[in-house]
C-alpha cells in the first residue's frame, strides 16, 4: 500500500517526468503484448469482416501502447511522434477496408470473410 501511494505521487508532472523503472516498463509491455495477441486471435477466429478489421485496429493499439511506453522509458519524444503515423496508417487502413467491406456486402449480401475465397488467384 505504501509503495502504491508512493508511485501515485510521482504521476507525470509538467516538463520531463521522473525516469521509469524496468519493472514498470515490463507491466506496460505485457499489457501491450496481451492486447496484440487478443487482436491476433480475434483476427484468426472471427469470420465477420468488420470484426476482423476491428481486430487489426486492436493490434495497432497495442503497437501504439508499446511505442509510448518505450518513449516514456527512454524519455524520448520520438516514440510519441510515431504513434501519430500509426494513427495515420490506421485511418487509411480503415477507410480502404471499410470500402472493400461495403463492396463485398453489395455483391454477396454477406459479411463473411470466406466469401472472398473466389477472389484468390
Amino acid at each position, binding site marked *: 500500500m505504501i509503495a502504491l501511494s508512493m508511485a501515485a505521487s510521482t504521476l507525470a508532472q509538467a516538463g520531463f517526468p521522473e525516469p521509469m523503472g524496468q519493472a514498470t516498463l515490463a507491466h506496460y509491455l505485457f499489457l501491450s503484448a496481451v492486447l496484440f495477441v487478443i487482436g491476433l486471435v480475434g483476427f484468426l477466429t*472471427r469470420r465477420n469482416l468488420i470484426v476482423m478489421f476491428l481486430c487489426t485496429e486492436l493490434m495497432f493499439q497495442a503497437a501504439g501502447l508499446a511505442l509510448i511506453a518505450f518513449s516514456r522509458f527512454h*524519455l524520448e519524444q520520438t516514440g510519441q511522434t510515431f504513434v501519430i503515423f500509426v494513427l*495515420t496508417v490506421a485511418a487509411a487502413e480503415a477507410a480502404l477496408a471499410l470500402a472493400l467491406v461495403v463492396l463485398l456486402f453489395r455483391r454477396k449480401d454477406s459479411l*463473411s470473410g470466406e466469401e472472398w475465397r473466389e477472389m484468390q488467384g
Partner: protein
Amino acid sequence: MSPGPWWASEARVGVSHNGSGRRADHSGSGRVLDQLINPFLLYLGLAVGGIGLCVALPRRRVNPQAIGAVVGAAGIGLVLLGLGLKHPDQLPNYNFYIFGLIAAGSALRVITHPRPVYAALFFIMTILSSCGLYLLLSAEFMAFALVIIYAGAILITYLFVIMLATQAPTEQDIDVLADYDVESRSPMVAAVAGFVLLAALTTMFFRGAAGMESPARPNPDALLAQMPRKISNERVRESLFRSGELGESETVTAVSPERGMVTLTGLDGSREIPLPAELSIKNVESIGFDLLNDHPGSIEIAGVILLMAMLGATVLSRKQVEFEEEAKMRQAQALAAAGGVFSEKEVRP
C-alpha cells in the same frame, strides 16, 4: 518511481554496469527473465489466459463465455502479480491496473461478442482506457489525439458501415445473428497459436526490459535552447515580473537554457536564478518540435498515404444507382429480344 535516484535502484533490478556503461553479459538466458518475474509463474499465467481465451470465443452450442473471461482475467492478473512481487518498489501507478484490466477485458469482449455493433462499442472502451494509460505515461497530446481520431472518427466510420452492411431484421425474427457471427473459426488452434506468440513476445520483452539500461536524466531545459522565440529576454522578463522575482531596478541580461538559468543584472551586481517553470517545454511543444524538426519527410509521406486512401476508398465504393442498372437490364433485354448486338450476359454487372 522510487524516492532515491534512479541509478540506486538499478542494483536491485540486477543490471550491472561495467566501465563502458554497456550491459554486462548474463550467463544464462533464464536468469535475465528471472530478474523480472518467475518464469514458471509467467508461463502458468499465460497458459491460464490462453485457456480462458479459448473458452470465451463464441461457438454455437454451449457458450460459457463468462467463465472464459474470468479465467483469462485470472491469467493476466497472475502475470501482473508476478511482475509486482519481484519489484514492490517499482509498481506502476494503481491506475495502471484499473485501465489495464478495462482495456484487456473490453478487448476480449471485442473479439468474443457475437454482435459487431457491440464489438465496435467495446473497442471504443479499449481506446478510452488506453487513453488513460497514455496519460499515465505522460503522453497527453497523444491521449487526446487518440480520443479524437480513433473514438471520434475511425470508430464512427465503423459504426456507419455496420449500419449500412447488415441485413434488415424481419418482423418475426428481430434478433437474428448471421452464421459467421455465431461460429468462430477453429478457436482452439487460434488460442494455442496466440498463447505461443504471447509467451514468445513476453519472454523477449521481459528479457529486454530486464537487461535494458535506463537513460541518463536529460536536462529538462535543453530543448528550450532550440526555441529562441520562447526564451527571448522580453518573455523571460514578463514571466519573472509576474511572479515577482524581478527586482525594481533589475534587467534580464542573459538567458542560458542549457543550464536552465537566467542572469539578472541590477544596481548591486548580477545574480542567477532558475528559469521560470511556466517557460518549460510542454508535451505538445516537444512533440511538435520532434515531428517538424526530425521527421519532416514522414509528414509528407503520411499526407500522401491519406490522400491515396481517400482516393482509393472513393473509387472502391462508387456505386451506380440501382434503378439505373435495372433500366439498363431492361433495355438490354429489349435489345436482345429485338435481335440486337448485346446479349444479356454482357451487360449484367
